[in-house]
């Protein structure tokens, strides 16, 4: 993961309107399916769709599309899903649905997770898609450098008949949810890999997904065609799917208006969203957030090793003003690390310190002044937010030096441990999976400013609890504890919107889907150029 691209993690992402999903989202501890549960009702068969992707994020695949070596895999979900398919899919309503795996279940009290591989499935090169292939792939990606590699407490991954059996060292509740934002979900054909060699496979990958690669110019354009052997009957609807990298929201909008593209995935410029909503030729759908913006404070170094300095930041931050004035109430408010699109959402945290300029001023005076740097990733929404924060904090007497980083320097800033405050996003569909809460707040993470054993234990306990109700209670307690300690103010839950030409239908394009990392994982096998589309 790299910036422009990138910041999957660091980036900010994800949004929302209110949701179907939220707490009602289901992660089944045991689930089976026939494989096409996001219902396409009478989608039109055929047609060619061109999707434009932002060259600074999901439109960059400089390392190619082999799940083992693609370090930007988290951002390239549309491409990866279209080529490889998914073992487990995230559908509308926040439902985890079996894909290339026909079922998944916990056993051994939550220490074993078993995926049953769908029988009879073949890769697009005609070779069999077996449990052994999947187990070998998972073992391989566990060592891959992608941000999207699984971070499971895994002991062994083995094939047993049609099953892939994953043994964990401890109970690991987010096992199923962690597939959808990891490269374990995308299984390449080992035969094709051997035949083509690593270098060529990166450019012309072969999987068992709904589409096969026709041509691929890295980070520029990839043309895919329908895979006739795809395991879901009657899918995909499209005959051809083309992804083109483009310079940004404005250029994407014009390409849609002119008819050279029919969809754009990652729209985040507020003024353009409003403008596009008024365009009769387009449909704009706000996606569901899973990662709220937060202000990370480095509690190991001055000034934020002093709780009073942290409290001053809480009181000086008027997140409602930013949310309503800067972003016109587009993104929902949240006081913790959960968001409307994800699991265990609670908008409010008891005792949360809301904006109180008088208290902020008093604390700054007591501290004898307060100076800080506020860094963030080079992304429009993030940069606008840091500017607003700096001006709010100035009213309380806090002097702020704003810095925006590309991904590489941002990583280095974290690793140097010399940073003081960072505007970032924290959270994921399941708080314990992917770039979740531990990524930002656990002692062991290099991207955390908090080193608190009690918080580590709370988050660990939540990740090790299978009962969803109990997990929610534990996460609510963790959010309250973080607020009590004034570790990190939260602002709002950002998510991008999707835009599509009239006539196009599909989950994640014309209906809201839960964001996986930054953007929702659009189900292109269900996308159609007309007709009923998705339910």
């Amino acid at each position, binding site marked *: 993961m790299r910036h422009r691209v990138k910041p999957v993690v660091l980036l900010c992402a994800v949004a929302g309107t209110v949701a179907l999903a939220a707490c009602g989202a289901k992660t089944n501890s045991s689930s089976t399916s026939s494989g096409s549960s996001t219902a396409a009702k009478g989608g039109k068969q055929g047609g060619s769709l061109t999707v434009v992707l932002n060259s600074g994020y999901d439109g*960059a695949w400089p390392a190619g599309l082999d799940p083992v070596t693609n370090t930007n895999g988290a951002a390239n979900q549309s491409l990866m899903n279209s080529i490889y398919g998914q073992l487990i899919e995230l559908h509308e309503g926040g439902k985890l649905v079996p894909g290339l795996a026909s079922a998944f279940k916990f056993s051994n009290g939550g220490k074993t997770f078993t995926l049953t591989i769908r029988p009879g499935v073949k890769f697009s090169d005609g070779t069999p898609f077996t449990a052994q292939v999947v187990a070998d792939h998972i073992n391989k990606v566990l060592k891959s450098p992608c941000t999207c590699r699984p971070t499971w407490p895994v002991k062994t991954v083995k094939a047993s008949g049609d099953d892939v059996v994953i043994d964990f060292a401890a109970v690991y509740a987010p096992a199923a949810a962690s597939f959808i934002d990891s490269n374990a979900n995308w299984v390449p054909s080992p035969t094709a890999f051997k035949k083509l060699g690593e270098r060529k496979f990166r450019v012309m990958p072969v999987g068992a997904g709904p589409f096969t690669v026709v041509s691929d110019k890295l980070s520029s354009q990839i043309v895919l065609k329908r895979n006739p052997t795809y395991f879901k009957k009657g899918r995909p609807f499209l005959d051809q799917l083309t992804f083109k990298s*483009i310079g940004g929201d404005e250029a994407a909008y014009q390409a849609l*208006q002119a008819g050279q593209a029919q969809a754009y995935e990652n729209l985040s410029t507020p003024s353009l969203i409003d403008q596009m909503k008024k365009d009769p030729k387009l449909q704009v759908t706000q996606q569901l957030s899973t990662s709220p913006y937060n202000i990370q404070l480095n509690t190991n170094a001055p000034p934020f090793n002093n709780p009073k300095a942290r409290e001053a930041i809480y009181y000086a931050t008027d997140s409602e003003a930013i949310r309503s004035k800067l972003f016109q109430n587009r993104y929902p408010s949240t006081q913790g690390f959960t968001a409307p699109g994800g699991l265990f959402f609670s908008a409010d945290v008891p005792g949360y310190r809301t904006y109180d300029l008088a208290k902020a001023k008093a604390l700054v005076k007591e501290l004898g002044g307060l100076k800080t740097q506020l860094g963030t990733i080079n992304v429009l929404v993030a940069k606008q937010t840091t500017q607003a924060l700096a001006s709010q904090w100035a009213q309380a007497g806090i002097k702020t030096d704003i810095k925006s980083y590309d991904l590489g320097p941002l990583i280095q800033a974290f690793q140097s441990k010399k940073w003081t405050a960072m505007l970032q996003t924290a959270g994921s569909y399941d708080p314990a999976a992917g770039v979740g809460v531990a990524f930002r707040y656990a002692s062991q993470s290099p991207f955390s400013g908090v080193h608190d054993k009690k918080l580590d234990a709370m988050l660990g306990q939540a990740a090790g609890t299978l009962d969803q109700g109990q997990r929610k209670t534990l996460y609510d307690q963790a959010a309250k504890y973080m607020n009590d300690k004034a570790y990190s103010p939260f602002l709002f839950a950002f998510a991008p919107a999707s835009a599509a030409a009239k006539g196009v239908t599909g989950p994640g394009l014309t209906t809201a889907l839960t964001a996986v990392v930054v953007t929702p994982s659009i189900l292109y096998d269900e996308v159609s150029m007309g007709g009923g589309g998705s339910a």
Partner: protein
Amino acid sequence: MTDQAVRPGPALALRSPALRLIGNRLATAVPVLWGVTFLTFAVIQLLPGDAAQQLLGINATQEQLREFRDKLNLDDSFLVRYFHWLGDVLTGNLGNSLASDQPVTSIISDGLPTTLELLLYALVISLALTVPIALLAARNPGGFVDRVGMVTSMAGLSVANYVLAVVLVYVFAVKLGWLPAIYTNNTGTLGELVKSLTLPALSIGFPLFCFYTRLLRADVLEQMQGEDYVVTAKAKGVGPWRVLVRHALPNSLFGLLTIVALNLGTLIGATVIIEQIFAVPGIGHSLLEAINNRDVPVVEGIVLVLAVIVVVANLLADVLYAVLDPRIRYGRSAS
């Protein structure tokens, strides 16, 4: 002298002013190209961020980072790596991309033709507009064409080409629907190529046209008002248009030629941005991405190729000087 006449081969070639010029220019090109590659290498080292971390991502372990650095010798000193790269280049090997492991030569050969087509098209557009407008303006200074040309030029020079690109797309792609908003040359036909590249080429070529028009108009006017050969031609009864086109214009083209050649570097810079906006799959796109990834072999390879293009274009301009102006004979001034 006689001996040289008897043995024409290399000696005769050395006496040819044009060949001597080319030889001299090529000799000076070597240090120029070396300097460009060295400076590019140095600048990339100065950029903040670590290539291994940048390429492997945020989750890379220390062991993976170390392996990556070892494999690509990233821990060697700057000079060692540079000369290692230079040694490979001299044997025709531009290396492989750090990000994708694809050969740099294939990345360049994939994108360069499109970039050159775009550059050429932009130049043709700018010059095809420049010459007639400048002549019309110079024919009647202060007249309608001159005034409109002046306003247009000022406007064109004041607007950044990426802003112009957005305006052109809005008018010609969105409103009129005549041309595509992004590169769509999937069939590879000439017609589709021209359609795909027209708006990008106009975005690059129009500001050039504005600049060149002011320059050529001023030069032609100067020729028309102050040069003896113009007065002589007029005295002989040659018509004003003929004086303008046959006498003043050829003399004024030298200045334009120089500026066009010198401007090529700027033109390439503009291409990098315009390729992004129009999703043109050229090497500008690859260059920008490689810089972001600290993908040194790709950056160096592309910069080297672009530098060669600029050097060759300037050399051609010099040779063209000699061809266009019989008074100019390089190498004779000393004798």
